[in-house]
């Protein structure tokens, strides 16, 4: 770690500036692309003047540069842009299609069930009671489509959040955009934080739990 009080850094920078000025004076038409070459030349000329700390710092800076270059190469190999460009859109489209198909199938079932319900009104006694019990059970069972639809919507929302965050990471390698997105989620509405959707059975309250809670308010 460099100690600014020992004067090494200012002395090194001053020496660098002096030598850069001298080079510029000798080469007034210096092109920007020649800067790297000039700096390299300056470092070469001052190499004998570097202290041990300056040499260590230089090696660390070079190592940091190599690490960044390696990380960029590894990210490119991973093709993380495939996640946002293909994988997640494909997955969400598939899930949307599942919701559409189950909705269509459920409506077809309900239509048939409504016909049976109408028939139950034309008969009496035990057959009517049996028909109505059966149709009631079908209506109850068809609510699966609402529950699965909400679960799939939660998954799609999660995938889209991942997609957005991956895009932000690719674009910025920073946290500020992610933080902004998180704040936006929290501003979505007064009861937005209460909209959790269906709970998994292991964590959910059933109707008897709800009844007990409601009764506790009386």
């Amino acid at each position, binding site marked *: 770690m460099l100690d600014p009080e020992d004067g090494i850094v200012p002395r090194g920078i001053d020496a660098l500036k002096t030598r850069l000025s001298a080079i510029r004076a000798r080469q007034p038409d210096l092109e920007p692309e020649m800067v790297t070459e000039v700096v390299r030349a300056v470092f070469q000329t001052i190499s004998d003047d570097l202290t041990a700390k300056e040499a260590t710092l230089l090696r660390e800076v070079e190592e940091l540069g190599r690490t960044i270059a390696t990380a960029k190469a590894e990210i490119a190999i991973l093709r993380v842009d495939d996640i946002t460009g293909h994988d997640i859109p494909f997955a969400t489209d598939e899930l949307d299609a599942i919701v559409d198909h189950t909705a269509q199938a459920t*409506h077809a079932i*309900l239509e048939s069930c*409504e016909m049976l319900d109408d028939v139950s009104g034309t008969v009496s006694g035990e057959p009517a009671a049996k028909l*109505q019990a059966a*149709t009631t059970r079908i209506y*109850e069972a068809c*609510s699966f489509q*609402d529950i699965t639809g909400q679960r799939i919507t939660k998954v799609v929302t999660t995938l889209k959040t991942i997609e957005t965050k991956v895009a932000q990471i690719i674009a910025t390698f920073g946290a500020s955009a992610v933080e902004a997105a998180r704040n936006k989620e929290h501003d979505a509405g007064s009861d937005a934080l209460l909209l*959790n959707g269906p709970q998994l059975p292991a964590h959910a309250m059933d109707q008897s739990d709800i009844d007990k809670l*409601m009764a506790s308010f009386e």
Partner: protein
Amino acid sequence: MAIDKSMNVLIVDDYKTMLRIIRNLLKQIEFNNVEEATDGADALSKLRGGNFGLVISDWNMAPMTGLQLLQEVRADNRLKTMPFIMITAESKTENVVAAKAAGVSNYIVKPFNAETLKDKIEKVLGHA
């Protein structure tokens, strides 16, 4: 107390499948005057322009949620005593607490059965 099954009932859900299921279940327990709304704003408009005896609403809707609809109903002088049942998949304690604080009459968690629906309607309208 006898329940007037000829009353108008408003069912609110953004899932057409659920509207259809609830409508059919209500028909089986002889509530035949049923109107539908697909979101909170639509429901509020129908409630203000109509004569309803019961609201059965989902919670998770956009742009106005069922909870916001309930709050609007309770803030409206003409509607504030309207029996209001929430039918929702939101089953966390904080949801039930928030709904009760907003003045919900009863709370049914999805998936539900016909017997639960009938039981809650009788409780709510029996106290109305």
